[in-house]
């Protein structure tokens, strides 16, 4: 039984002393197992499968399994040969005609040692279009040992027609626009002060795109209708610049078979819903893969077939809470040679022009130095586009 974490916090407050702290048990046991993950989707294009080996808990790393021969078969007699494009990453371009709802797919992998692995057939169920995505302002903590901060909890409503899949998994990609702390007005280069026009230059606004590493899966299995409201997706706290200007989320809604949902649900329980007062003993998620040569050998991962529906949403900074600001300390320039040439400067004068000048870290002027790109993504809409 899962009980909201509040019980625990409730008890902590009630008796005034509970606590959670990081803990690493001393374990020597380790078994290297083959991991096959991937899915075949309803979208024409490059389909990929990743094959790797598990690593010890004390030294987690991605160990690709190279040199496998990989093929995907459907129940209509077609088979698709995959080729290794990156170490452990096997891909194949599959045309739309072979990707249809109701078709069953399975994978067959032969490792370089000649061991053969297969999955059970997984059926591609129709994915309903993505319904509304919205947020609520909440307080949450990123981990059990950290305090909670305000932010936006994004929710999704599932509203699927009855003949569509009942189980879904969502993959999220976030994009946010952010700004440099200071607009570049001067630049010191080769002993010269270059003046920039005080217009929004190309190093002031940037965009960052990231995959969200979370597992979001839900089902309407216990419900009367194929609908579910307020399915929580990611939480964006005020501790990053994500919400500073405009935040966008691309939601890819994958349909899942019952077997696949059972697998992902178990993974969700074991990696996200732990640490409750009434936990049950952890168990491994049971995938659909097996070793043909040795049925007793556990194989990790899941190979599934999913239809995809997509939706992108934008959220503007209209939040009452304070948003983390990139910290920039201004050094007043006394001697121009005190700083490594070239560097950006701003005027500290009352009129905003002329000496004294100040400078700061490059990231305070150049947004691309913070990891993003200053080329506006094609899908980006400005506030005026809405």
């Amino acid at each position: 039984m899962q009980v909201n974490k509040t019980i625990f916090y409730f008890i902590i407050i009630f008796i005034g002393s509970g606590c959670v702290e990081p803990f690493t048990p001393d374990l020597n046991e380790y078994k290297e197992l083959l991991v096959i993950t991937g899915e075949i989707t309803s979208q024409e294009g490059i389909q990929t499968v990743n094959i790797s080996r598990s690593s010890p808990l004390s030294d987690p790393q991605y160990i690709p399994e190279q040199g496998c021969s990989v093929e995907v078969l459907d129940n209509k007699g077609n088979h698709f040969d995959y080729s290794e494009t990156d170490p452990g990453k096997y891909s194949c371009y599959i045309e739309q005609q072979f990707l249809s709802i109701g078709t069953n797919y399975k994978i067959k992998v032969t490792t370089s040692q000649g061991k053969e692995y297969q999955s059970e057939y997984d059926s591609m169920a129709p994915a309903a279009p993505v319904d509304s995505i919205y947020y609520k302002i909440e307080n949450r903590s990123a981990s059990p040992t950290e305090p909670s901060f305000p932010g936006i909890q994004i929710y999704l409503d599932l509203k699927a027609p009855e003949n569509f899949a009942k189980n879904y998994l969502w993959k999220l990609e976030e994009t946010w626009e952010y700004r440099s702390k200071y607009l570049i007005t001067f630049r010191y280069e080769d002993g010269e002060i270059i003046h920039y026009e005080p217009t929004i230059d190309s190093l002031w606004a940037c965009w960052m795109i990231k995959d969200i590493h979370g597992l979001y899966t839900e089902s309407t299995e216990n419900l009367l209708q194929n609908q579910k409201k307020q399915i929580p997706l990611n939480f964006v706290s005020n501790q990053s610049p994500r919400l500073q200007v405009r935040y966008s989320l691309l939601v890819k809604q994958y349909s899942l078979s019952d077997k696949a949902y059972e697998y992902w649900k178990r993974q969700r329980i074991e990696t996200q819903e732990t640490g409750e007062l009434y936990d049950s003993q952890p168990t491994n998620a049971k995938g659909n893969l097996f070793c043909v040569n040795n049925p007793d050998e556990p194989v990790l991962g899941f190979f599934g077939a999913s239809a995809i529906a997509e939706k992108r949403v934008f959220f503007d900074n209209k939040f009452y809470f304070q948003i983390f600001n990139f910290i920039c300390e201004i050094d007043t320039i006394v001697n121009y040679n005190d700083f490594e040439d070239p560097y950006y400067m701003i005027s500290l004068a009352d009129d905003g022009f002329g000496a004294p000048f100040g400078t700061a870290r490059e990231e305070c002027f150049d947004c691309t130095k913070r990891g993003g790109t200053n080329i506006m993504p094609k899908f980006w809409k400005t506030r005026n586009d809405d």
Partner: protein
Amino acid sequence: MYKIFIILFFSSFMFSTQAQENDILISGNFINEPFLNFVQTIENSYDAHFYFNKDWVEDITVKASGNKLSLFSLLKESLDPKDIHFFIDKNHNVFITNTNTVITRLPDYKIYRNIFEENTDEDEGNGLTTTEKAYIKGRKTRQATTINIGNPQVSGGKKAIINGKIREKESKEPLLGATVYIEEMQTGVASDIDGQFNMVITPGRYTAVFRCLGMKEEQYFLQVYTNGTIEVEMEKELIAINEVTIKADRYHNVRGTQMGYERLTIKSIKEIPVVMGERDLLKVAQMLPGVQNVGEGSSGFNIRGSSADQNMFYINKVPVYNTSHLFGFFTSFSPDIVNDFTLFKSNIPAKYGGRLASVFDITTRQGNKTQYTMRGGISPVTGHIAAEGPLIKDKSSFSVSARSTYSDWILSKLKDADLRNSNAAFYDLAANVKIEPGPYSLVKVFGYYSHDQFTLSSTHTYEYSNSGGSIIWRQRFNPSFFGEFVSTFGNYNFNTVNNVNVSEAYSHSYNINHYEFRSDFTLLIFKNQNISFGANSIYYNLNRGYIKPYGLESLRMPIDLGVENGIEGAFYLSDEIILHPKLTVNGGLRYSFYNYLGPAAVTGYIPNSPLNENNILDTLYFSKGDLVKTYSGPEFRVALNYLLGKNNSIKFSYNRIRQYIFMLSNTVALSPTDQWKLSDYHIRPPYADQVSAGYYHDFPNKGISSSVEVYNKWIYNVLEYKDGASFISTESIETQTLQGDQNAYGVEVMIKKNTGKLTGWLAYSYSKSVITVNGPLIEEKINFGNSYPANYDRPHGLNLVTNIRSNRRLSMSANLVYNTGRPISYPVSVYYINDVEYVNYSSRNKYRIPDYFRIDLSINLEGNLKSEKLAHSYWMLNIYNLTGRKNAYSVFYQTENGKIKGYKMSIFGQPLITLSWNFKLGNYASE
């Protein structure tokens, strides 16, 4: 003092001739003549004078007719049953004394010299001669006199049955666990909850020693003629409380056939440190060997490696299905009304059954029969109060208690919005009435209610309550045959609302009713035998409830989890025989049976396939009252005790028990939504065999008793749950469960010191508990069919409980607790899916969370010791987890930003200091 003895000396000299010599022969016809009239007649007709208090003889009548009647015999006949003593002197003065016997003989020095030789003479140095001192000593013991039992006229009988009753002198409350030790026979018996005891003995003269915790030891000569009654009143002893304890326990420890038996009174645990300042018998029970629980602040016991649902809790015979308040931080019985509990964990007597691991028999205070009194207290979380007193003086009494928490008030002061929107409240009430309609019968009526309610940030609501009542009627049909009839009822129900997701929100109500009737008889017709037999039957009626959509937006699919009915019954016969002064055997047979009753719809599955919804074959319908499935079988109970010497013995026992009801719980700790469920068409009732052997040794001079017990328990058909089992998704629980075998074994060592300034115990237990679920089909295996440690397998447990009493007002206690951490499956490897880390767990329960260690301290300060005062109070300062060790409650893993991280959760991560205050009316010694 000297003067008193001189007076005593002279007055007793006057009475120093044999009573019978002064007998008067009378004639007359008295048919149920009131005693007062009888006295008048005698005084008028003979030269006799009666001295007595009218109250004593109010309802006594005299029945005799004829010539030359012996006044002595007549008075004896009339007054003896009322326990009224008398004496006729040579001037034909008849002195009637109530409970005190008039001393009529000079002491016999020889006998008593031994008894008192260790005592120092208080009056030493005041100029007495040795002879005089010896004489005074003799006088003292003469206060313990001969009690005549039975009819002296009848002699030469082979055996006599003595029915006795032991009471506290002041309140007249019966004393439980008082012992009667017959020195000549080196045997004894203990009194039961109503202060009663019975023994079969060859007529003759005996020295009987009466002992009881907190009471002055009493010594009497018993002159046994025939069957008879005896009533002994004991006085409280303030100083030597603990010195008496050990003597009471010694009987059980070495001489009784009972193994794995523990009894604790609330008085004896008064000073033991507790969490949150609440005295709690069941928390202290966890300090006993072989008793554990899965984690701090969680409810439920694991006894000798058994799951928590294998324990039966009775409070005054009322079955209690959930014994916890507030997730398990408190026990749902108020400390003010609980008197003691008895725990059977090894050879469970044949009269009990239905639970594989243990029986907790909790009894409440009986109520003061002579005066009204009150007690109560406050701790940081609760306030509690109780009152008791006579309904009709000396005939009936009552006691009531109430306890409640003010936690809501605390929560409303908190800053966190989620917590401010939470609330938690609990309370419990109990009431008890005891009536003695006549000398041979006793009726007790008890009612109990407990309620818990908590709302957590408007997403979860829990509410649960226990209620129950019992009527206990004890009757002595004749001196060798007693019966007890119990009619009892218990109800447990919970309501829960889960509002985490609006579409999935649901409410669920669960309800179980337990109706039980039992009759137990004791027969004492053979010498050295104690036969008991009886029967009980239980009717279970439970409604697993409806899963209903909650709120307007909920789309939750309603599910009816079903109604269940079952009847459990049993007959038993057991006999405890003293085969030889050194060898006692207790043999019992219990036959239990169980019917699962309709109405029911039973799902049939395709043979040789896993029980799941894909393999449904048909449905069998049963109408109301139909026998859906019957299970039954004998349960043998054997125990024997062989006395090796005066202070040591070995014991052996074998037990079989069947259990027809179990709890659906797939969490490590018991949760407030765990459902009780009956064995049914598919789920077979579990049963267990247990063998135990033990060695018991007392060191009376040092006040130490010790024992070592080993046991092995095999449990069959034990219930385990499939991975990810859900108990609110289907009525067909067989699709969520598997049945397997369990093997639990271990050693328990207990060393207890009950005398001196330092008292306490040291308990060590080693206990293993291993489960194997290896069905024929792949789906019917857990852990690939390999055995694995049970969730509550915690091999090493060490408990040290100590109490140092520096004076009567101040005492200090300390506990030390060590336990092996509970088993857990740890991740042993990491793998990646879409750049996110996932873990692969080890085989089931292969590892353990860190070991548990804790030290507690408490200081108990009593109010002043004046005897004349209105109320007495005491303060208790508790420091729980003195070292502040962050004991792991659980270890868990979570993925954050694609990285897996390990955490340890502790409930009490720092010392918890509480101050509580308790009071009672009366003085320090008041009960």
